[in-house]
């Protein structure tokens, strides 16, 4: 049973690691990687806690949520990467302008 | 007894994989890092097959099949797209 809790804690850890990197680093590609890792963390929490059904089959509802979540995450990542390339194409740097002055 | 061997071997391959991570960190050239990722793909295929046999769940073989198919896509993307143009820096030629 506690396999589920171990993986859930790992998931929560991934979420917070990603949140720290999202806020702490300026480079946009690193922020996008951080968002992906946060997403994987949330999905891990969702699926790990679905396994608390003893030796019966785990709860399929979180599994369905996570499958759609993964596909949505990859499309949001593709949009973020395209936007980053446009920003870096125009400003010459893959960093949010004005981020450092204020 | 054979069940224990499957898990033991899967664990051994996982440790193998972690050891390979060191090459990604240290790997001087970008090609070395991509190599390590390629090896991990194959190691994961082997582990999936072992876990399929250990847990008696034949579906994991489909997962292994998809991994075997897709391991090459990332490497091809690396070769075709992501290899930086400039000459590898000096320390690569050791």
């Amino acid at each position: 049973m506690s396999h589920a809790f171990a993986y859930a804690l790992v998931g929560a850890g991934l979420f917070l690691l990603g949140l720290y990197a999202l806020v702490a680093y300026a480079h946009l590609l690193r922020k996008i990687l951080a968002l992906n890792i946060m997403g994987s963390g949330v999905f891990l929490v969702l699926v790990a806690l679905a396994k608390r059904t003893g030796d019966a089959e785990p709860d399929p509802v979180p599994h369905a949520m996570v499958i759609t979540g993964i596909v949505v995450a990859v499309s949001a990542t593709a949009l973020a990467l395209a936007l980053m390339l446009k920003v870096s194409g125009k400003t010459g740097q893959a960093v949010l302008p004005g981020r450092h002055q204020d | 007894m054979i069940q224990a061997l499957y898990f033991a071997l899967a664990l051994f391959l996982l440790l193998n994989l972690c050891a390979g991570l060191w090459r990604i960190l240290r790997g001087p050239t970008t090609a070395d890092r991509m190599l390590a990722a390629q090896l991990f793909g194959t190691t994961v295929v082997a582990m999936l097959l072992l876990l399929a046999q250990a847990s008696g769940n034949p579906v994991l073989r489909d997962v292994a099949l998809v991994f075997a198919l897709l391991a090459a896509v990332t490497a091809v993307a690396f070769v075709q797209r992501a290899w930086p143009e400039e000459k590898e820096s000096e320390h690569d030629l050791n």
Partner: protein
Amino acid sequence: MEAILANADWGVIVILLPLTGGIVCFLWPAVSKTAGLITVAAVVLAVAGLGRQIMEHGAYRHTVGGWGAPLGIDLFADGLSLFMLIMTALVGLGISCYAKSYFNPRDAVWFWPVWLFLLAALNALFLAADIFNLYVTLELTGLAAVTLTALTGRIDALSSAMRYLLAMLAGSLAYLLGVALLYHDSGSVDIATLAQRIEPNATVWAALGLMSAGLALKTALFPLSFWLPPAHASAPAPVSALLSALVVKASFYILLRLWLELFADFAEGVSTLLGLLGAAAILWGSLQALRQTRIKLLVAYSTVAQIGYLFLVYPLASASSGLAAGIAAYLAFSHALAKSAMFLAAGNLMRFGGHDRIADLDRAVQRLPLTVSAFALAGVSIMGLPPSGGFTGKWLLLDAAMSQGRWDLAAVMIIGGLLAAGYIFKVLGYAFMQAKEPHDARAVPAGMEWAALLLAVGSILLGLMASEIFALIHPDLVANAGGAVERVWTA
């Protein structure tokens, strides 16, 4: 015919219509403008049909797929969500008429399909009764809003769209983690079922914290409002009107709905915090607005301030949460009308003068009377002067604050109103004067001016017809803490 119209399933039609419209615009770019306008008009009629049904039979519930609450997904509309649907439809219609003549053909091809998908997402969000479904609609709204913000392709639009996308994705993931904790704590994602099964333990507190933080980030509540001003200022005028009037209200509505039905009775600490942040938002937003030299940035900071008013509802709602929700919805509607009129007027001024620097508006009053009067009327509602809708909403809030002895919140509201008057009259003052180097005026299509004026007049009318509108969001129609509504009519 009358029978079909009476019991047609309006709730579902309100969602499917803009979806089909969006796909038609995407498949057939040549016809996107007309298809877009027809779809938005049809959505207004569908919302009217839904409104009539709810007024007669009470709250509307539709079990999608026929599976029922915990397993399947339900669509649910009570007075509060109907009010938000009416807001989205009317403001959306005004903005669509403006956008018809605003965009050049190349941008219009992308604007219309994305705007219709945004409209579908907002309608689905206001009708959703399932917190994971709310996550999906939030994601849909966010992606559409980011795409629209980056439409012009200029540097400031792209970088503010990037910052908006990162903030939006982080907020959605925090919200999703809250959903995961709530689901694994009580075994359901349906709001009504959750309302019965929830009891205050650490998991529910963590979920409440995560969801409030995620939704506050998406509503740009004060400390988390870093992304809103650049995004709303650099987007094209109709898009910034959409963002400020509708998209920001969507996540506020979810927070209000969750607070109303799930967390109301054990979240005193959170409501005082939200009230505090709201008060800080009013002061900080208004002061920042005073300092701006560009109209669109001024109006964007004014949005941050007015959102603060919405969050003052939480600490004052201890008496009856149904009434508090009514006040918040009313304030949101009046702000939506006024703010969209302001942004459209700002768009006209930019089209007219080629820039939106306040200092050299150069006799805008003589040459663009309709636009400046629209800006002025909207300003009346933002400032909260009678007879506008803004006044009624703020008066009710002030009355609630005074009756509960919250003099601090009352003081903040009054100071906020004065500061709002400050930055509105700053713009209007320059509109009368002559700029240092006068410039020739470029023609602004009449349709755009009239759209801005109609929305501004709407925000005034909202104040005049306050009594009928309040019948809509009457306490017994709004789902209260137990998730029960007195008159429920299952479609």
